[in-house]
């Protein structure tokens, strides 16, 4: 080998290595997407076969990442069902158990924290949420002179978040749940800005969930683990409620302040509450969002 060709090949090798090294941050791209997910069809255009493949992919991804084989399903809305939530402000004691039961059920990031429910501590005699404090740090609750108002996604009939989504990654289902396709979301956060209830959360970082706290009972539009850069929010525990169960926040409530059910069924608890209780508020009623989440008083 002569001197010139030696220098030439050395330089070419060095140049290629430098190119490779400079592109090395792309190795982390696998955390965000992969070919299969990139080529995936829009949720509403998927055939049952497509969905089976997608669920298989998600099962594999979760198993690789957490070492637990999840049970991922794609539950569809039931006929003749429209979900409504009713929350009794007389009963709520502000213990925040619902917040953490929700996190545990729906596989939210633990550190940094993503929580769907915010419990506002509000002074008696006012319904002004501006006066609410959600970082209260009392030794004992309830505190005298205050009431507590948990706020989460209100599952509006006229959802502003759906209107602003530029890619239709979020939409309202026939049972009233506004869902997000985490594989379709581009993370523009328009919906977060549009929501008057501060109900949507953004994964600024890769979500951190300890393996032993992962809930393996998952659904596609519900609690499957999210990636960095996508939105998420309360979906009325779609993986439970479309299976006929109560949401996790309701079951854990120690005072029975949370009520959930099918408003189209006149025998359901929520229908009874709408008929007989002082259901006084859809939060920020004047926005015209028409929430399916109602606050009421007992007395």
């Amino acid at each position, binding site marked *: 080998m002569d001197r010139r060709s030696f220098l030439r090949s050395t330089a070419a090798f060095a140049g290629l290595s430098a190119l490779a090294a400079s592109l090395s941050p792309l190795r982390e791209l696998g955390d965000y997407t992969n070919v299969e997910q990139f080529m995936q069809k829009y949720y509403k255009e998927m055939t049952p076969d497509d969905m089976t493949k997608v669920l298989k992919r998600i099962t594999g991804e979760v198993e690789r990442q957490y070492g637990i084989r999840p049970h991922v399903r794609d539950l569809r809305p039931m006929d003749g069902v429209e979900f409504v939530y009713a929350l009794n402000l007389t009963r709520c004691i502000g213990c925040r*158990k619902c917040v953490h039961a929700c996190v545990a059920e729906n596989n939210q990031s633990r550190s940094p924290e993503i929580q769907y429910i915010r419990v506002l501590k509000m002074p008696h005699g006012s319904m002004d949420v501006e006066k609410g404090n959600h970082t209260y740090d009392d030794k004992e609750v309830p505190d005298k002179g205050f009431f507590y108002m948990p706020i989460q996604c209100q599952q509006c009939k006229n959802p502003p978040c759906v209107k602003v989504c530029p890619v239709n990654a979020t939409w309202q289902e026939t049972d009233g749940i506004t869902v997000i396709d985490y594989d379709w979301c581009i993370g523009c956060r328009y919906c977060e800005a549009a929501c008057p209830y501060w109900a949507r959360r953004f994964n600024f970082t890769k979500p951190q969930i300890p393996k032993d706290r992962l809930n393996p009972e998952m659904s596609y539009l519900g609690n499957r683990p999210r990636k960095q850069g996508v939105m998420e929010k309360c979906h009325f525990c779609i993986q439970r409620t479309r299976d006929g169960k109560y949401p996790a926040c309701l079951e854990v409530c120690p005072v029975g302040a949370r009520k959930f059910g099918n408003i189209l069924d006149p025998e359901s608890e929520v229908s009874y509450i709408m008929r007989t209780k002082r259901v006084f508020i859809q939060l920020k009623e004047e926005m015209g969002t028409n929430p399916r989440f109602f606050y009421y008083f007992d007395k």
Partner: protein
Amino acid sequence: MEQNPAPSPTPGSTKTVYCLSALVFVFVGLAAAFMGDLWGHPPARQEIALVDKSFLEKTPWRKTYADMVRAKEDMADFDCYGCHDKKKPPPLRFDENHILIVPEEHKDIVMGHGTHNRNNLCYNCHNESNLETFQVRDGRELKFADSTQLCGSCHGPNYRDWDAGAHGRINGYWNTKLGEARKLDCANCHNPHAPRIPTRVPAPGPHALRTPVEHPHTPETVH
């Protein structure tokens, strides 16, 4: 593709050499920057401790008589005639303010039903002629397991709401075609002797993504 800059007399290839050298320089620079972590790591986030599992507990904080029978627990506390005499109802004693004195044997019972001590009489609910049952104001006799009906005999509106599922806790299935809905009894949440729900320690509040920066107060933000 990279190519070794080869010296050449023609002006066109000189240009190529300069371009390629510049590219190689840029790539080497970038590579060095990534290797040496020139931008450094993002500021470390504060690790947030996992929430205590007691806050995720769904079981009610009290067991009713019926729950205890179902769990086959020791029911010795409910064997009234182990100590009391069958024919002689135990007398109630009051202090100078007409407040019931809880006997030493029952000192774990806190009397706190109703305000102003108006309902702190044992025989408003317990049956003096048969201590192992309850008595309702309308004359019915109820078993310990049917305590919810006893509560309902005074607390009508709450009983009606409970019956409709609007008061109290229900676990399980909202769609009873798919599974069972387990409605909890009054005594699962309320202590019958002191029914007001006690205060409790709240679960930890939300942590911010970053520690909020303290801005100096301006006249507009001072409250």
